[in-house]
């Protein structure tokens, strides 16, 4: 029984080494006191041979941000797949706080599979969650991510983000002389080009139902905002105005889009009303107003403005049009994004000539610098508010990097092909 499992583990390791991905995660740092968890390789009861390992994907997910120490299967004293096979002593000895076991069974439909799993609190010796995932066998990675999400939410109390996606722009290379709008799983797998063009692409922004992405394309010679539907690749270009048409940003309620137009003579924040099919101007200042982001309740917008002489972050009440300045430290603060709690912002902050990613509490004004890389830009926040991914440089190469919001874990995601910039984290889906 154990020998068969070991063989399957080795087989799945060999297979996963061959799978290609375009973003890899390399981690440094991590919590001093991570959660100790054991994920037992799930019992595979299908006739079709196992090509993926759910255990490997879940382990990789949970290790992503330094929050968990996952027990290696070779250190396990037993390999239960059912509740009655669990001896809590076997797991307490190894220091595990939590245990996950499971099995994979067939369904009537031969292309589908059913995964049953249990999450145990080892110390209290009880089941804290019974889960099922059903789906096509080819979606095993997705199923594993759903299990990771459930483990994460049951042990951390906030949603997991392992089923979310990252959109980003891939820069042209000698081999591939086009710009690509890419989407990828957070672990780098299943990356796909949604749109490619010989002219620049910028500023991808997800709709809150994850069905569409808005972005800026220069394919017609100057900037224009496009909305593309992921399932069909249908594209709509929003009415192109004189000058800059850029920085699209969907409202969380899905009803509007904020953007930047300079048709009035200088860049101002506008809203596109989908019902009326027209642009509504929100700011009216002779300086540069750009980079809007909606508050979680869709009532406010933060944006970058140089109206005081250099770029700073301002907050606009959409109804009253009242503008309030938020940042006062440093001479360059730009490209802010709200955290999901609406109480803090993450933004680009220049200090001593170096561009860092920093957070600021809106009420207290307290700034915290998160990164020790330089030339940082385009921060994007995970929908559970725990992780920030941003663009930076590794020598001459454009790469994506990340940091947990407490600053403790830092990681890089160097692209295997091309160079990545302008990451945009998708919303959570049910």
């Amino acid at each position, binding site marked *: 029984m154990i020998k068969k499992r070991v063989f399957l583990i080795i087989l799945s390791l060999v297979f996963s080494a061959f799978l290609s991905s375009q973003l890899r995660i390399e981690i440094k740092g991590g919590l001093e006191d991570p959660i100790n968890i054991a994920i037992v390789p799930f019992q595979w009861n299908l006739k079709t041979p196992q090509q993926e390992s759910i255990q490997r994907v879940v382990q990789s997910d949970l290790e992503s941000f330094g929050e968990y120490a996952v027990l290696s299967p070779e250190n396990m004293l037993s390999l239960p797949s059912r509740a009655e096979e669990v001896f809590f002593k076997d797991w307490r000895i190894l220091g595990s706080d939590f245990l996950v076991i499971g099995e994979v069974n067939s369904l009537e439909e031969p292309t589908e599979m059913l995964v049953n799993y249990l999450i145990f609190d080892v110390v209290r010796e009880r089941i804290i*969650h*019974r889960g099922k995932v059903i789906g096509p066998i080819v979606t095993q990675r997705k199923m594993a991510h759903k299990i990771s999400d459930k483990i994460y939410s049951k042990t951390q109390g906030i949603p997991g983000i392992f089923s979310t996606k990252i959109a980003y722009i891939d820069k042209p290379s000698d081999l591939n002389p086009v710009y690509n709008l890419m989407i990828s799983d957070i672990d780098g797998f299943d990356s796909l080009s949604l749109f490619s063009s010989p002219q*620049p692409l910028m*500023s991808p922004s997800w709709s809150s139902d994850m069905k569409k992405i808005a972005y800026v394309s220069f394919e017609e010679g100057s900037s224009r905002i496009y909305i593309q539907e992921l399932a069909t690749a249908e594209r709509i270009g929003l009415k192109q105005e004189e000058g800059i048409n850029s920085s699209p940003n969907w409202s969380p309620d899905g009803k509007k889009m904020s953007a930047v137009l300079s048709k009035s003579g200088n860049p101002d924040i506008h809203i596109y009303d989908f019902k009326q099919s027209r642009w509504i101007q929100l700011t009216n200042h002779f300086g540069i107003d*750009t980079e809007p982001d909606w508050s979680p309740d869709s009532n406010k917008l933060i944006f970058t403005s140089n109206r005081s002489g250099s770029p700073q972050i301002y907050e606009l009440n959409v109804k009253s049009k009242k503008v309030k300045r938020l940042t006062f430290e440093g001479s360059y603060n730009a490209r802010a994004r709200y955290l999901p709690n609406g109480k803090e912002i993450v933004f680009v902050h220049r200090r001593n000539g170096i561009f860092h990613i920093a957070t600021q509490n809106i009420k207290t004004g307290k700034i915290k610098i998160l990164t020790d890389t330089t030339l940082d830009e385009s921060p994007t926040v995970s929908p559970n508010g725990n992780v920030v991914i941003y663009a930076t440089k590794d020598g001459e190469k454009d790469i994506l990097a990340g940091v947990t919001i407490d600053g403790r874990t830092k990681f890089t995601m160097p692209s295997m092909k091309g160079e990545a910039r302008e990451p945009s984290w998708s919303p959570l889906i049910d």
Partner: protein
Amino acid sequence: MNTTHKTLLTMLVFLIASCSSVSTDRTNDATAISASASGAYSDNGLTSNNILYFAYDRSDINSEGRAKIRTLAKLIKDNDLSVRVEGHCDERGTREYNLALGEQRAKTVAELLIINGVSSNKISTVSYGEEKPAVSGSNENSWSKNRRALVKTF
């Protein structure tokens, strides 16, 4: 174990079991579809490409640049040319802010051309921000070459 004990034990098991949660998730193999553009934009009919440079974070032109623009304006008027001014930035700072800075640079040059007699309906401006650098490299030598406006005549 008598019946009362058994009942109590069963109730206890249910109680403990009910402290755990239950879920069912479903996955599907839906995937996104790709599209592409061929890129209609081109430099067909280009007669000259002239470059002006800028200081970091600035969009003003120095006296050398102004002299260059005066000469260009004459060439454009004499030959009844069309002009496209492209504004560019170095990689530092945020992309969208740089798109705006690039536009300021292009507009500054366009305004100077107009002051020197070029008809405004012959001039178009566009900003590429930091998206189309002339040279790569994260040092002042490269950055200074990327902070530029291109005056293209057709």
